[in-house]
């Protein structure tokens, strides 16, 4: 049932590209209508044939009075079965759709439509009435999203994906600065975990500044559920939150709840903004500086540093090591799906650092032989010491380990999560640009701790599996 359902919009997929305005209105609804008609017809037909047979039997037997009881029974049974079948199909359809779409805003209306039709005998009328809402909700780009959403195999349905939500669709209470940030995140203009975190905190700071407590409410009680959560929901819808954002938001909510009930609104807002500023300074700005310095210390004269893709921390560490007069060269290994390494190579050559560039993993073993140290920056660190980073990191780290090269991971402690990942599928994100029915690409992978020689954080350099100890240490500070 659900596969048929999935198939229908996929066929319609090419259409929206050509005529994006008409397609979304028509196709999903049509599909649903056809679906439902088929289902109800099928079950009705089955019921009719059964009852027909029963009638024939009864007439053949010619004992009118004798068989009326049996006949009635059979008829009632058949009718019941038909009703059941009908109900079941409509339920299944609704269920299937609900399972595929995690957000009710996207596919909910069509599921509702189906239900409405299932109840009403006439298919056309309720469909027409229900059509009013979906057209409002379904703006043009959502058709593309719908198609992608549906195509992800159910096994991977727990993985989320960034999607562009038109500004018009966002909740009216979403703050303009958050709106813009959401767009930047959805388009991967702001990509790295730590830059996203910084941007989010700054946007929330603006939200706090422009917040006015409605009369009869207290900031500490009203702000989080009625303002902050809306912003967070919107941001999460644009792109799944990274772990650092989760950590920081938990912290921010705690700060809000800690605010003295008697404090004036001005005072409360000032305190919150100050707390955010300090948080950014301590956990991001100064942390980055320290990690850069410490990371750079591991680059020695004559080293060949291998960097995968481009990450600000790694770039900073390399530039810092260069600025201290260390003579070394860099081997930039790029992610063929997102060639940010070219940018890194350019920046480094501009500074006069010798750079070798490889566009993909071809000849990786040869490159790795030449390298002496491998630098990564973690998107997040799991509590079992696994490193969550750009897809491909694990492959590079494993090879480095096999060839006895040292793998150095740079990571701010805000990126450490209390969650655990033993594989790359538990937590991940689907590349919105590369997902089709046949295949999709994941953005990240998890590198087990044994492939990481050293984890540099602002608290100090530790083993990767000491990540939970750092978390505990951080809790002690608070």
């Amino acid at each position: 049932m659900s596969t048929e359902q999935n198939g229908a919009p996929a066929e319609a997929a090419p259409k929206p590209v050509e005529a994006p305005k008409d397609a979304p209105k028509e196709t999903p609804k049509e599909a649903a209508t056809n679906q439902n008609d088929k289902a109800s017809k099928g079950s009705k037909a089955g019921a009719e044939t059964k009852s027909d047979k029963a009638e024939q039997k009864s007439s053949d037997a010619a004992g009118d009075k004798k068989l009326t009881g049996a006949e009635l029974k059979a008829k009632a049974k058949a009718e019941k079965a038909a009703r059941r079948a009908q109900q079941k199909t409509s339920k299944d359809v609704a269920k299937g759709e609900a399972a595929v779409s995690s957000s009710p805003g996207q596919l909910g209306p069509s599921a509702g439509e189906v239900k409405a039709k299932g109840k009403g005998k006439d298919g056309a009328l309720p469909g027409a009435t229900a059509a009013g809402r979906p057209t409002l909700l379904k703006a043009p780009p959502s058709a593309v999203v719908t198609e992608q959403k549906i195509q992800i195999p159910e096994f991977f349905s727990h993985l989320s994906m960034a999607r562009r939500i038109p500004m018009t669709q966002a909740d009216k209470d979403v703050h303009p600065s958050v709106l813009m940030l959401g767009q930047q995140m959805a388009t991967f203009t702001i990509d790295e975990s730590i830059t996203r975190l910084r941007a989010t905190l700054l946007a929330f700071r603006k939200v706090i500044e422009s917040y006015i407590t409605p009369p009869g409410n207290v900031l500490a009680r009203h702000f989080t559920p009625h303002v902050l959560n809306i912003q967070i929901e919107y941001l999460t819808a644009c792109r799944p939150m990274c772990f650092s954002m989760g950590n920081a938001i938990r912290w921010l909510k705690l700060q809000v709840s800690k605010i003295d009930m008697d404090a004036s609104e001005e005072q409360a807002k000032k305190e919150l903004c100050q707390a955010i500023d300090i948080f950014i300074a301590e956990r991001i700005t100064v942390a980055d500086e320290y990690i850069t310095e410490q990371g750079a210390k591991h680059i020695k004269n004559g080293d060949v540093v291998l960097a995968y893709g481009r990450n600000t921390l790694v770039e900073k560490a390399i530039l810092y090591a260069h600025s201290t007069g260390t003579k070394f060269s860099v081997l930039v290994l790029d992610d063929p799906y997102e060639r940010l390494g070219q940018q890194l190579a350019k920046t480094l050559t501009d500074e006069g650092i010798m750079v070798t560039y490889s566009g993909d993993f071809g000849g990786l073993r040869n490159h790795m032989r030449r390298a002496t140290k491998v630098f990564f920056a973690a998107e997040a660190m799991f509590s079992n010491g696994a490193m969550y980073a750009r897809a491909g990191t694990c492959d590079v780290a494993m090879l480095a380990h096999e060839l006895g090269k040292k793998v150095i991971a740079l990571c701010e402690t805000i990126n450490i999560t209390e969650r655990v990942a033993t594989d790359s599928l538990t937590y991940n994100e689907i590349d919105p640009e590369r997902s089709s029915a046949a295949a999709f690409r994941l953005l990240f992978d998890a590198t087990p701790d044994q492939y990481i020689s050293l984890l540099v954080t602002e608290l100090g350099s530790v083993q990767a599996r000491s990540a939970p100890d750092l978390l505990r240490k951080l809790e002690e500070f608070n």
Partner: protein
Amino acid sequence: MANVQDGAATRDLPLRGTNADAESFDIVATYHRLLQEDPDLTMPMAAIEALIEFLGHSQVKTVYETIDLVKTQSEKLQAAVRNPIALSHGTDLFSQYLIMSLKQPASSSGSNGAGSKSSPPLDNPHESFEVVRQHLLRNSRLFATRAKNARERIAANGRKHLHDDTTILTMGGSRVVGNMLCRAAAKHDYGWYTDPPRRFRVLYAVDPALQAESNGVVESLRAQGIQVATIPFTALAYAMGQVDQVIVGAEAVTANGGIISSMGTYSLAVLAKASRKPLYVAAEQHKFGKTFPVDNFDFSFDQEVINFYSANNKEDKAKKVPMPDPIDFTPPELIESFFADHKVLTPDEVAKEVIDMLM
């Protein structure tokens, strides 16, 4: 704490005098003198004692000033020696200890002024800080003497892991290991029960560079009635088949549970691992530190042990001066466990302890 600092900054004018006092004190000379005076002193402990002596000399008035001065003196000390690892572990430990002990009294007196003492905090910040400082100096002495007893406690902890009729391989003239083996050969009174002496043999690999120390340890072991055989370093792999366990000392213990020790320890550890013999490290807790080398060339200094030259450019040889006491780094994978003065622990536990203690 803020009160203490503010009060001092506004009221205390003759700051210059204290600085002059601090500058006249030569921490580097003190450190070397301490090491010379007491051959039993380890490098981290000598660093700590030098810092304490410095604190006794200086007339610091504020908490911040104290911490700042200790920091600059530590840096001065570290810059003065070629291999500052062990020393820095001592200074790190001391400054951490300082911060902790200065924090606690200040915060407790700040929160509830009516403490058990005469509660001077608000009226007289100088006095309260002086109390803290004196208390600190006394505590620091205690801290130093306690650290000196560590060797005996290591011997008591380690003897449980030595067994009769075994052969123990060691090297490098470590006093901790020497002491531990000597104590194990005698009976030990735990109080509730007396541990009988262990009967074991010792295989001593002698490094020509550490001949004098090694001979000293070998002689003291033989004096205890322990059977000792000495072998040259080249015979290590050959002799490994006869060995049951390997015990070495360490100059410093790194943040990942590896050790920094005299050159050759790493080779020994690799050979022990290859023959599947457990390697134990006897080291005091004060040797633990934040240093985290990823490999043997990841130190802040160049040992200049490796020196390429050919007949054509012999003058190159003169350019490099190999470090007099070369060291190497043994990664935690090769270490079975540590005999420390407070307990016996695995490399992972060491890593955890370093994070808890120093980060």
